[in-house]
């Protein structure tokens, strides 16, 4: 099993977290602050370009060069353990370092470009320096369990493990892509009860372009997953990627309108559930006001104070 660091963390900002669910980032920072984890946030870091890559707008060289720039900044700061909040950021950075190591020609081309703009090449880093928040949270789950203030005992949660974490670099994921259980095991530290569902391993349906260009196809997948989640009696679906979270939190109401079926499932990214259980404020830390499916009814049930 890989070594998971809990210091020298470079918190890698995600465009979708930043603009859709910023509470994911503040929740993770809240958890890290509470646990005394040493991390840094770098205003110079750009978004990973991954959405552009999978929209087929970005070519390989450009995405790898963008990654090398960001990773070079992290290396220069001495914060070499990249922690992403999004599965696409995770796989894009990992894949870029993987390519640079496999392909010396590409490496020298990228290093030449960085040189021209006055930046250094991340030569001390390899793909094992790239982590996802779930790697870190899994390593911290016993500590988290000891700091739980709100006990979610009895809450029926299910997980949606992001494809670009479990499937792109299968050997580096802390869970099996065909029987994923990592998010569930982290959530258990809050007392929540994991449930299994038939479509657990199927992709969320976003499919990058498919959400925008092939909406019926995209939502057909999401609908299948929602039906299977409902059959299993899921109350909260836990996510690890903002793109999947959009697909469920934003589109569940759309699908309910289109089909007349009601799902009523809450959607949170795993750091949000953990932060709530550690006593974080729903609005100034967890950011539930940016969600489409209101989280208030759930929080009231567990005695957390919410706005009317």
């Amino acid at each position, binding site marked *: 099993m890989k070594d998971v660091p809990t210091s020298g963390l470079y918190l890698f900002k995600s*465009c979708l977290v*930043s*603009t859709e669910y*910023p509470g994911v980032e*503040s929740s993770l*920072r809240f958890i890290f602050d509470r646990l005394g984890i040493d991390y840094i946030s770098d*205003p*110079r*870091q*750009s*978004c990973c*370009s991954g*959405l*552009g890559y999978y*929209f*087929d*707008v970005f*070519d*390989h*060289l*450009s995405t790898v*060069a*963008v990654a090398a*720039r960001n990773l070079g900044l992290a290396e220069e700061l001495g914060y070499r353990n990249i922690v992403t909040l999004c599965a696409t950021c995770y796989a894009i950075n990992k894949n870029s370092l993987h*390519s640079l190591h*496999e*392909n010396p*020609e*590409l490496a020298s081309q990228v290093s030449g*470009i*960085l040189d021209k*703009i*006055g*930046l250094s090449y991340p030569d001390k880093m390899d793909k094992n320096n790239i982590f996802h928040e779930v790697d870190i949270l899994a390593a911290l789950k016993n500590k988290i369990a000891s700091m739980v203030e709100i006990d979610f005992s009895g809450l029926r949660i299910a997980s949606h493990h992001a*494809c*670009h974490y479990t*499937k*792109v670099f*299968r050997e580096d994921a802390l869970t099996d*892509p*065909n029987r994923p259980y990592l998010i569930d095991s982290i959530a258990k530290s809050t007392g929540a009860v994991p449930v299994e569902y038939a479509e657990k391993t199927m*992709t969320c*349906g976003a*499919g*990058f*372009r*498919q959400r*925008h*260009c*092939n909406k019926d*196809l995209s939502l057909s*997948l999401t609908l299948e997953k929602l039906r299977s989640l409902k059959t299993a009696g899921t109350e909260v679906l836990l996510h690890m990627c903002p793109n999947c979270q959009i697909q469920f939190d*934003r589109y569940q*109401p*759309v699908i309910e309108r289109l089909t007349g079926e009601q799902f009523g499932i809450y959607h949170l990214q795993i750091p949000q559930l953990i932060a709530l259980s550690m006593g974080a404020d729903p*609005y*100034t830390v967890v*950011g539930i006001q*940016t969600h*489409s499916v209101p989280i208030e009814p759930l929080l009231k049930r567990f005695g957390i104070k919410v706005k009317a």
Partner: protein
Amino acid sequence: MIKKSVLNASWDGKFAEEILEDPQAPKGLLKCNQCGTCTANCPAARFTSYNPARLVRDVLAGAREKVLSSADIWQCFYCYTCHANCPRGNSPTELVRILRLKALAQGHAKEEVARFLAFGECFAEFGIGGMPSDIVESHANEFGHRWVKMRLHIDDLREVLGLQAMGLPENAQKQLKSLLHHTGFMERLQRLSSDSEICQSRGMR
């Protein structure tokens, strides 16, 4: 009735070799034994006529034009389920990526990416990707007032959450843009946007 074979007039015996010249090409491409594991697990195959095992077979059979002009390669979700499970080290996902870029380079299917070019432009300007205006509009209709209000006030919301402002410091942004010039990305955007009608209506987020 006699069915048409995939090996029609325009087949190219060197197609697979040409794909393997790309450093991103899946190492196990030639080892595919048509076991069908990829298709069995593929969400696109479940809901459409797309079939990754058949796509691999067509590529190995040299059906270049059929593959590059097919709408099927645009149905993939890039979910990597096939990539994770292929017993022969092949990756239909990575193959699709190469085929799509090849199709674009040959002038096929520009309309498939046209509406996403704004993401690249926004990235070059602000260091963070953004959605084109037509997508933002359709999201406003789908997600409603609550979402629109949230997006309008995102900067204030971030402040409430104690988060840094979005966007890069000026110097860093300049560096990033210059990096994108050096990689040829800005030229690529130009190339992809030329003679595409859909592009006229695009705008920033």
